[in-house]
Every structure is written in structure tokens, then in C-alpha cells.
């Protein structure tokens, strides 16, 4: 028994060594599609952290496609295709998420509910999610309009908190 174990361990060691050699040649940055697949499954905060890793990751996480996935992948039925250009024009999905969706979701306590569950609840959540999407988009549009008024729409700058009609979302709430 012990001998079998020793042979087994020896085999594993051999494998480990060869795997290590293989692994040394593997870099995730060489496999962008895998990287993107992984990043797509992260939540907003992790995406933000990921953006700080290296320049490549920063570049990837700035792509709106990731944020679009984050915003709306759980919405069903799928949003009409016209949404993307509208959101892009209003400032992009990243800004939409940071400015509207994230606070709205956390205020309404739906962030956790959206991941998992099933059956009847799923249907109810989808209906609510549609309203949530509509509401967020409306608020986002109001924000864009206000920024127009204050002299030039800022591109995708998330830190720009000059629009005041959404301040009620930005400030912390005593929960």
C-alpha cells in the first residue's frame, strides 16, 4: 500500500514538474479571450480593482462591452438593440453603471437578488428589472442633460459629479 502510494506520489511529482514547466510558459495576458471571459463574470468593484493591475488590464476594463455585460446581462428579455448607441451617446455603460445602476441597485437591495433564484421569483424580478432599467436610463439621461447645461458634456469621466439632480443617488444614506 505504501509502495503504491510512493509510486503515485512519484508520478505526481513528475507531473508537477512538467506542469510547472508548462505553466511557466502560460501567461493570461496572452489569452485575451479567456481574460475577457473571466472579467465578464466579475462584479463592478472587482472590475475596478482589475483596472489597476496593469496597462493591458486597464485598457480592457475600460472597454464598454464589459460594463454593458455587467449592467444588463441579467435582463431578460434582451434589451432592444437601440439601447447601445443611446447609452454610448449619453456617456457609456461604465458611467451608467457607476452613476445610476450601482446606487439604484444597492438602494433597492436588489444586487444580491439578481444572482440566483428561480421560478416565479425569476419572473417577478425580471419585471422589476425592466422598470429598474428604464428608471436608470431615464435618470442617466437627465444627468446628461444637466451636464449639457453646465457647459459641455464630459466624455466618460466617472468622477464628474457636477450633475446635481443625481446627487440624491451619490450621497451616502443612513440605512
Amino acid at each position, binding site marked *: 500500500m505504501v509502495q503504491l502510494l510512493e509510486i503515485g506520489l512519484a508520478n505526481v511529482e513528475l507531473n508537477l514538474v512538467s506542469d510547472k514547466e508548462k505553466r511557466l510558459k502560460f501567461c493570461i495576458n496572452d489569452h485575451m479571450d479567456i481574460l475577457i471571459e473571466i472579467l465578464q463574470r466579475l462584479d463592478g468593484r472587482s472590475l475596478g480593482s482589475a483596472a489597476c493591475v496593469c496597462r493591458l488590464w486597464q485598457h480592457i476594463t475600460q472597454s464598454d462591452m464589459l460594463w454593458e455585460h455587467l449592467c444588463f446581462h441579467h435582463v431578460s428579455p434582451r*434589451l*432592444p438593440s*437601440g*439601447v447601445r*448607441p*443611446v447609452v454610448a*451617446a*449619453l456617456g457609456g455603460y461604465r458611467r451608467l453603471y457607476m452613476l445610476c445602476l450601482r*446606487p*439604484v441597485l444597492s*438602494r*433597492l437591495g436588489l444586487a444580491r437578488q439578481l444572482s440566483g433564484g428561480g421560478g416565479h421569483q425569476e419572473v417577478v424580478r425580471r419585471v*422589476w428589472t425592466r*422598470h*429598474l432599467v*428604464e*428608471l436608470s*436610463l*431615464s*435618470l*442617466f*439621461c*437627465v444627468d*446628461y*442633460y444637466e451636464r*449639457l*447645461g453646465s457647459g459641455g458634456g464630459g466624455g466618460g469621466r466617472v468622477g464628474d459629479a457636477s450633475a*446635481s*439632480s443625481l*446627487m*440624491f*443617488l451619490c*450621497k*451616502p*444614506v*443612513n440605512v
Partner: protein
Amino acid sequence: MKRDRDRDKAESSSMAATAAEKGKMWTAEQADVGGMDELLAVLGYKVKASDMLEVAQKLEQLEMVMEDDGISHLSSDTVHYNPSDLSGWVQSMLSELNGTGFDVGPAESTIIDDSLLVPSDNNSSIVSSSIDFTPSQSQQSQIYEDNSEYDLSAIPGGAICKQNESSAENGNKRRKTIGNRSGEAASAEVCGGPTAARPVVLVDSQETGVRLVHTLMACAEAVQQGNIKLADALVKHIGLLAVSQAGAMRKVATYFAEALARRIYKIYPQESNDTSYSDLLEMHFYETCPYLKFAHFTANQAILEAFAGATRVHVIDFSLKQGMQWPALMQALALRPGGPPALRLTGIGPPQPDNTDALQQVGWKLAQLAEAIGVEFEFRGFVANSLADLDAAILDIRPSAAEAVAVNSVFELHRLLARPCAIDKVLASIKAMRPKIVTVVEQEANHNGSGLVERFNEALHYYSTMFDSLESSGLTQVSNQDLVMSEVYLGRQICNVVACEGTDRVERHETLSQWRTRMGSAGFDPAHLGSNAFKQASMLLALFAGGDGYRVEENDGCLMLGWHTRPLIATSAWQLTATAS
């Protein structure tokens, strides 16, 4: 804040807790004003800080005695030569009470107070006048130089509150005796009993709060009766009482007192043509609380549903202001299944004093937004002093087969009630526009009564609730400046409701049922706002920090937003009666 600190100290010292109205403000705080307590100095009383305990005890005694024996004539008949010396006159009243008896002479009518500090030889006879006080009498000519300290003492604590109870002998109006003592200037206070006791929701249930409300109502009644002297005294008293309150109640009372004072002194607020200031105030109001957002979102939802299937749409906005309602509608139209329609927006606004074309600027911003999101957009602005100046022909209405029309009015229609027939003319011209839907958002209150007192009471209830909701949402979210500006915005409305009359009074709010009757008789049928609007509104409200205080209610197809149990604004939608097409 200083007031909280004072309250803590007041609680800990507890000695003056039950004394007269000022009691809650007293502390054992060190004073800067030459050994005098500084808080009381603000009120006009000079009390040494070291004497505070003594004075408080005396006042307690005095109040107990006055309440027990029901003799409040003491406050009116006693001569106070130095009212700011609190300790002195309290002592004199106590000794008088203990020393002499009191007689209740025949009930006579009263004079309004003061002329107190006049030396004794001036007043050899006491004049008793009728309740309809005529200021022509020489002795009362001094009344317009009264000092507020004496006013305070002239209204005993129990008097106003006891109004409702002691109706048996006195009827509705209190009468006091006037002893004919030589060398004394008698003064008494008439407090007209508050009219039919309307249940008023109070933010602050302390005794002072109750007194404050009663004083406010008594003052309004005095103004309505033309009893200017009494009203004047009461208004000053309100000012003092209001200081002892905290939070929303104080602000409401201050605004109402100011409005009453304007009415009394006939300093009417000028209807300013400077709309940029009122627009600024309204922007802060928009940001601070959800009322305007609710109005916009629910109206937009109704318009959106009415526009389903139309390829060209025309929206006529009776109150464009900054155009904050339309970005959300444009976005919803852009994303609707089937693509966006071509949107035409006609905005109506008041003339600007400096000739800037504010409407065009708003239209330009909206056009930029429309271009960004891909909606075909056209804008026209119309400047009009009043909506009644417009008619359908000017607005370039295209035939309804080609274009669906929506008319939108947020807090605008009630202004038309100031002139006779204006509202009917406007409703007729709306009908001539053949709209698919008419959305009306109005305040849910009846501030259009002809009598001042009923209007005042209604407004007091309504704006107290409003300020209460501002107060609780303001703490955690918006800056103090936003909150203050929103309050000024509401304060201007209060001033208009209370102080103005005739065509100047434009804030003529009416309730939903009144509007229903009006719209129904003008030839409109109600269009029910659907559950989409309700859900969106509920979600919107949940985002606000005071979210659990706000309530959305559905009332026979209309949506009402309220604070706790009191509905404050109502959105309704209307369409032309089927036979009229």
C-alpha cells in the same frame, strides 16, 4: 447646534421646565451681557444668571396659581413698569395675588394691550371699548409704539389653550374685567377663539407647539376680522414662540408669520418678473425632494403610453421652465420598440425681463440631447404672460391623423383661477388642439377658499407636512443650501396664499376632486395611469432616503404622492370625451 446644547442643558437643569413658554429655552448658561442671561436678553428680559433658579421657581408658582384659580385677569390688570425685569414683576404679581383678593366685575369688552410704560397720571380713566376696536381714541394712539415684551406678558399662558374649554360663560370671545383703578393703565388681550378646531398635524407635540399653532390660527382670524391691533400683537408673539421650536415647525411658523405680517402691514410681495430666481429655487426643489421628479415621471409615462404607435408626436408644455421633464421622455421614445417617432416640442414660458430668450436656450439643449440619442426633434417656444393669451391656432397644430398631440401642465393650471373665465378659455383651447392626452399635475390641497381663515388652516396643514418631508430627507442627502432654497421656494408660495388677494394671488391650489369636476364639465374623460407608472414611481421614491415616509397612492386612475398619510401632489391624465371627436 446651539439649540441642541441648550436643550440638553435645559433638561439637566430641569428647573424651568414647566414655566411659561420661554421655559424650554432657559439654561443655566453663563451670560455675556453684564451678568444677565444672554438667551433671555434676546427675548428682552434682563435676568441675572444667578437669579435664574429663583425666577423660575416664582414663575412656576405663578403659573400654578393662575391655572388653579382661573384668574388670568391678574396678568392684565397688574401694572408692570419694568417688564424686562423678569424677576421684579413676577414677584410683584405673586405678592399681589397673595395680598389682595380679586374681583370679577361685570363682563365688559376689552382693549388691546400696552401703553404700559406711561406714567400713572396719564391714565386716569379706563376706557372700555367695543370689540371692534377703533384706534381713534387718544389713549390708544400710543399703541403703535408698543414694545414686544409687554405683549408677551399680556397673553397669559393658559388663555389661548383654555379658549376651547371655557366656552360656557364666555361664548366664543373672551371678555375680561377692567378694574377702574386710578393710576393704572389697564390692558387686556382679547384672543378670538380659534374657529372650528381643525385637526392639525403637528410635528412637535410639545405644549409650545400647540400654543404656536393656536396663536397662528388666532392671528389669521384676527386679520380676517380686521382686528389689526390684535393681529399685530399676535404676530409678534408667534415670532417669539417660533424661536422655541426646532426644525420644520419653526420654519413653517416663521414663513406663515411673515405672510401674516405682510398682510397686516400691507407690504405685499411684488410679483417679480425675474423668473430666473424662481427657476433657480425650483431647480433646488427638484433636486432636494421627489415631488417634481414624481410629477415628471408619471406624466411622461402617461404620454408615452398615449403615443404608442404614433410616428409623429407633438408635446405642448405649459410650463417649460428648464425643460427637466423632457430628457426622460426623449430617452424613452428613443428606446421604444419600433424606433423613436419624430418629436415636436412647444414650450410656453413667461416673458423675461432682460430679453434673453430662455426658451430658446432650453430648446437648444434639448435639441443637442435629441441629436445625441437619435430622435428627430423640433422645438418652438412661445412667450406669454398668461396661458389664456394663447389659443390653438397660434400653436400650429397639425391634423391629428398625422400627429399625436399631448398637452402637459405641471403646477401651472391653478394660476389661471386668479382671473375669472381664464381657466375655461384655456380648457376650451386645449380641446381645440385635439390632444390624445392631457396630463395635469397639481398640489393636492384646497388653497382657494374665499375665507382667509380656512385657507390659512389648510395651508398650515399642507406646508407643515411638506416641510416635514423636506426635513427628514434633507438630513442625509442634500446640502444645507439646497434645503434652504427649497424652503424659500415653498415660503414664496405660502406668502402668496396668505398675503395676496385678487389677481395677485396665483397659488390657488385645488384638490384632485375639484379638478376632476372641472375637467369633466369641460368635456374631458379621465384616462387611467397604468401600473407601469405606479411601479416606476414607487421605485423612484424608494431611492430617496426618506423613502419610507413617501407614499404613492392610486386614486381612481390618478396617482398621488404624499408624506405618510397626507397626499401632497396628484397626477392625472385626461382625454377628450369620445363623442367630441
